């Protein structure tokens, strides 16, 4: 118990003092996960909408694959991205392994299926009559998509929360493709693992508190935005 209390006390001191190493880790975490979620949104929302609205052979199979992707184990994603970026791999020439870019790629592979799957579900749960009504008023495809996304904004924001929560808190993939290099690819989760292994519980607690705080603040902001839109 003393160990935990002491660790928590020291962690607060580190945070209040503004430890530069911790801040560097926090900023990199936000940069990597924020970029990954943004890319996943740009890919996932159009793809999820198309999946929800289109009819083509094999659509159910694609949806099943996307839904399976929502539960990909991060270490498996890490393994495949590592193999892709490995010097002798198909993308080895890009020299991205053990860089933040590699971590973004891995996190996109984790977040994109979540956002595609939840977007498709959000659009599909809308009243089908609404789509017909919008079309019959003379909306083109772009307008239809925009209106449907606006109508489905509550579950879509839940998709953003799930995607961000999934990548900011995962450790396996970023550890494998980033390498946890100090000052370059060390993020909150990998740093926490390292500090715990080294017995630096105070630093690990500080990092964990920051991780929890970020997750809470991002979700709080999205929830306020979501509920403001929902109680119009």
């Amino acid at each position, binding site marked *: 118990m003393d160990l935990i209390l002491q660790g928590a006390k020291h962690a607060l001191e580190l945070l209040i003092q503004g430890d530069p190493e911790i801040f560097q880790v926090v900023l990199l975490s936000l940069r990597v996960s924020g970029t990954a979620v943004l890319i996943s949104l740009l890919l996932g929302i159009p793809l999820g909408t198309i999946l929800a609205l289109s009819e083509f052979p094999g659509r159910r199979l694609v949806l099943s694959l996307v839904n399976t992707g929502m539960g990909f184990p991060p270490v498996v994603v890490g393994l495949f991205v590592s193999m892709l970026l490995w010097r002798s791999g198909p993308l080895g020439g890009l020299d991205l392994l053990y860089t933040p870019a590699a971590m973004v790629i891995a996190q996109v592979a984790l977040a994109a299926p979540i956002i595609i799957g939840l977007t498709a579900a959000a659009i599909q749960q809308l*009243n*089908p*009559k*609404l789509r*017909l*009504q919008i*079309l*019959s*008023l*003379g*909306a*083109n495809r772009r*307008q239809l998509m925009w209106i449907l996304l606006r*109508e489905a904004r509550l579950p879509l924001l839940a998709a953003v929360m799930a995607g961000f929560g999934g990548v900011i808190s995962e450790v396996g993939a970023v550890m494998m493709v980033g390498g946890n290099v100090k000052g370059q690819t060390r993020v909150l989760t990998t740093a926490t693992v390292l500090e715990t292994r080294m017995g630096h519980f105070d630093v690990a607690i500080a990092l964990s508190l920051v991780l929890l705080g970020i997750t809470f603040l991002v979700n709080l902001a999205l929830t306020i935005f979501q509920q403001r839109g929902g109680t*119009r």
Partner: protein
Amino acid sequence: MGKKFELLGVSKWKDGPKRAELLRDINFTVDEGLISTIMGPSGAGKSTLLTLLNRLEEPSAGQILLDGAPITQLEVVNLRRRVGMVFQTPALFPMTVEQNICYGPNLRQRREYPGLAARYLEMVGLDPELAGRDAGNLSVGQQQRVSIARTLANEPEVLLLDEPTSALDPTATSQIEELIRALNQKIGLTIVWVTHDMQQAARVGDRTMLLASGEKVEEGETKAIFASPQNEVTRLFIAGRLNGNGSKLNGDKGRSDGAGSESTGPEEEHK
């Protein structure tokens, strides 16, 4: 009087393990400035036929002409603005009445439309003061009127009505019928009205077609069809003794005449 819509040998089916025939070889004309009713029992293919007219669905065979030209030659968005549609349930958007009414015009050009909502609210017999109200707070009858106003705000040449009174009480139904007849007479709007209620078809229709099992049974002037039906199936429908699959009620599974005796009933009328 010109022909607004012409349906030439139109069929619609859904492919799958078992092909479902929704409409078979329909030939039908919608005259300009008249109210054409399409009546038939549930599952007859009435709503499917309606959705072909504004290309919410495409026919599997046959051709549809609007003012003499195939509708496929028109840009689909323009077609839908010329051919407005009102559905069974109003499906208003969760916004104000004014925003709902200005929705179609805003899709064409995003700007303010001062006075537009009030004008169309008056046209459908509602208080213009309702413009600022949340659409969800209206009664179902009022919502359906707003839904009609929203469609009219696009200034369509043809109004497609898919059982617009089926969710309404008798008073609201009668008001909507009056409203549609007034719109037809005052602004010469061509109307295609789908209903499963033969009495409604008799009340509102200038011309009527009876559909059963996805096939045209009879077509003609409404009064003539009800006064002297030429087909046994029509007689059964008017007597309230026709099932959706075109068979007699009370366990008589045989068709009463040769109109599509092999037809499989549509599995799904709405997409």
